[in-house]
C-alpha cells in the first residue's frame, strides 16, 4: 500500500484528461464531489463525458462552467438517470444544454446506472437487469434485450460503465485510499472500482489503524483509489452524513444564477458567480470561508440531530 496523499490541484491535473469519461459519486445533493468539481473548473476541462445515477450540484457546476466559460470548460456527453435537485428545484443547466441540443446524452434509470457501474466494478462486460425491458429507455440507450438461456424469458443486458476517472467524496479515508462511507453508499464503491483512476476527497483523513478498527466500515478498498485529499466540507452546500446537512439557500442561489439563461437571459449573473466563488479563489477552503460560521455550525448541528449522535 502506498501513500496517495496529494493536493487537489495535483490530483485533478494528473487524473482528469480531455475526453475522459468522468464517474460522479454521491446521490443528488448527498456527498457529491463538489470540491473536486471546483478544482476541475478552475483548471478547465474539455470534451468530458459525465456518468452518474442521480446528481445535483456536481454536474450543475460543471455544466454551469461550460455555460459561463465555453472556451475553458466543455462537456460532450452525459450518461445519467436523473439530474435535478429534488426539493431545491429543477436542474437549470440540464434544461439549458439539452433543450439547445448542446450535448449528447443517454437516459438510463437509477438502477440501470448503478448496475452498469457494478458490472464495471466486477470486471464484467455487462449485467442483466429487469429495468429497461419496456418503455423507451431501451430505445434510446445501448440496452440489449435477449431471451434468458435458462428461462427463455426476456431480460435486458446493460453495458458496463468503466469511467476513466471517478470523483468521490467520503467521510473518512486513510493515506492508502481505504474509505469509510456513512449513510448511503450511493454507488461510490462501484464507481471507484469500475474507474481506471479514482480521486477521493474526505472529511477526515485518519491513521490506517483507526480507519481499519472496524474493517466492515470500509466501503472502498485502497486498490481502487489513486489520490486522497483531505477537504472538510468537500460536498458543501450539499449534505454529508454525520458532518453537515444541506445548505438549501446556497443551492437555490446558484440555480438562480442559471435560471434566466434557460429563458434566453444573459450569462452575466452566472459568470459573476463563478468569478467570485471559483475563479476568484485559490482553493476550495477559500470558497468555504465565504460562508458565515453561524450557518456552517447550524448545518453541522442539524446533521448531528438527524444522526442522533453526540460529538
Amino acid at each position, binding site marked *: 500500500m502506498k501513500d496517495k496523499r496529494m493536493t487537489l490541484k495535483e490530483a485533478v491535473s494528473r487524473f482528469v484528461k480531455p475526453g475522459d469519461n468522468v464517474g460522479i459519486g454521491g*446521490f*443528488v*445533493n*448527498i456527498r457529491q464531489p463538489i470540491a473536486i468539481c471546483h478544482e476541475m473548473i478552475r483548471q478547465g476541462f474539455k470534451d468530458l463525458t459525465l456518468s452518474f*445515477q*442521480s446528481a445535483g450540484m456536481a454536474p450543475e457546476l460543471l455544466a454551469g462552467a461550460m455555460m459561463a466559460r465555453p472556451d475553458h470548460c466543455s462537456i460532450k456527453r452525459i450518461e*445519467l*438517470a*436523473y*439530474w*435535478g435537485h*429534488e*426539493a431545491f428545484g*429543477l436542474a437549470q443547466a*440540464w*434544461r439549458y444544454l*439539452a*433543450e*439547445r*441540443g448542446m450535448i*449528447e*446524452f443517454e*437516459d*438510463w*434509470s*437509477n*438502477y*440501470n446506472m*448503478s*448496475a452498469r457501474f457494478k458490472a464495471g466494478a466486477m470486471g464484467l462486460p455487462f449485467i442483466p*437487469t*429487469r*429495468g*429497461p*425491458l*419496456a*418503455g*423507451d*429507455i431501451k*430505445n*434510446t440507450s445501448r440496452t440489449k*434485450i435477449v431471451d434468458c438461456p435458462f428461462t427463455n424469458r*426476456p*431480460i*435486458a443486458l446493460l453495458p458496463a460503465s468503466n469511467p476513466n476517472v471517478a470523483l468521490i467524496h467520503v467521510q473518512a479515508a486513510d493515506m492508502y485510499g481505504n474509505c469509510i462511507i456513512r*449513510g*448511503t*453508499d*450511493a*454507488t*461510490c464503491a*462501484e464507481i471507484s472500482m469500475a474507474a481506471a483512476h479514482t480521486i477521493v476527497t474526505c472529511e477526515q483523513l485518519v491513521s490506517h489503524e483507526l480507519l481499519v478498527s472496524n474493517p466492515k466500515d470500509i466501503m472502498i478498498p485502497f486498490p481502487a483509489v489513486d489520490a486522497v485529499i483531505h477537504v472538510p466540507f468537500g460536498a458543501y452546500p450539499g*449534505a454529508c*452524513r454525520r458532518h453537515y446537512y*444541506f445548505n*438549501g439557500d446556497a443551492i437555490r442561489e446558484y440555480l438562480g444564477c442559471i435560471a434566466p439563461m434557460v429563458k434566453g437571459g444573459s450569462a452575466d449573473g452566472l459568470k459573476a458567480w463563478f468569478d467570485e466563488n471559483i475563479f476568484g479563489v485559490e482553493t476550495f477552503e477559500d470558497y468555504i470561508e465565504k460562508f458565515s460560521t453561524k450557518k456552517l455550525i447550524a448545518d453541522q448541528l442539524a*446533521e448531528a440531530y*438527524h*444522526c*442522533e449522535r453526540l460529538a
Partner: protein
Amino acid sequence: MTVSTDYTAQEIIVVAGAKILEDNKIVFVGTGLPMVASLLAVLTHAPGLIPVFEAGAVGPPLKHGLPISVGDSKTFTGASYVKGLNGAFELTQRGFADFGFIGGAEVDMYGNLNSTMMGDFPAGYGKPKVRLPGSGGASDMAASCERTILIVPHDKKKFNQKLSYVTSPGHLDGSPGARQKAGMQGKGPYRLITTRGIFDFEEKSKRMRILHTFPGETVESIQENTGFELLVAPDVTQFAAPTVEEVRLIREVVDPNGAFVKRAAK
C-alpha cells in the same frame, strides 16, 4: 373531523396518497409528494408502514421528519438496512416491494409515465422541447414493484393518448399479459392520484378509470381535462375533502417548510 376549506391541490393529493397506503406494507417511495404522503400515512393510520428509499434506506422510522431527498440522512437513522442504490433496487427486483409510489409529468390511459422529456420523439430526443430530470428510480419501481401508485398533476396536455417518452412502463398497450410478456414483474399501476381525482385501471382493458372525484370535480369535468376517453367505475364517489386536522398535520408537522407541498400565495 371538520372539513378544511382552504386546502390546496397538492394537499388533497397528499391526503389521498396517504389513505391509499396500507399499514405494514413495504412501499418504495419516490421523491416529492410520495414522501410527504408516506410520512402522513405513518403519522395517521399506518404507523407500521415500511418505506424504502432508493438511495438505500429500508424501514426508517422517520422520527426526524420529512426527508427533502430520498438520500437524506433522515432516512437512515434507525433504518433496518442501509446499503446503496444497488442494494435497494436489487431487493426490489427480487420482489420484496409491495408498492412503488412514483410521480410523473405525463401519463397515458394505461398508466405509462413520462418523466424524461416533452417534444417530438424519437426525432427530437437529442433536443427536446422541455427536458425533464429523467427516470431516477421510477422506471425500476415500475418494472419490479408488486403494484405502483402514481401521482400526476391533472392537465389535458399531460394526459395524452401517446406520451412523448415512456419512462416508467405501466400496463403498456393494455393487451393481456403485456407486462409479463415484456419480462417485467408485478401487477403494474394500481392507483393514480391527480389534482382532480383518484383512478384505477380496469381489470380487463387496463384502461384508466375514474374511482373518486375530488370536491368541485365531476366525471364530466375530469373527462374534459383529459386527452383520452376515461372509463368510469360503476360506483364513482366523491373523495372527502381533507379535514382541518389533516391539513394542519401537513402544514405544521409533515412539511412545515413547504419543501414539497408549496404554500398558496397569500
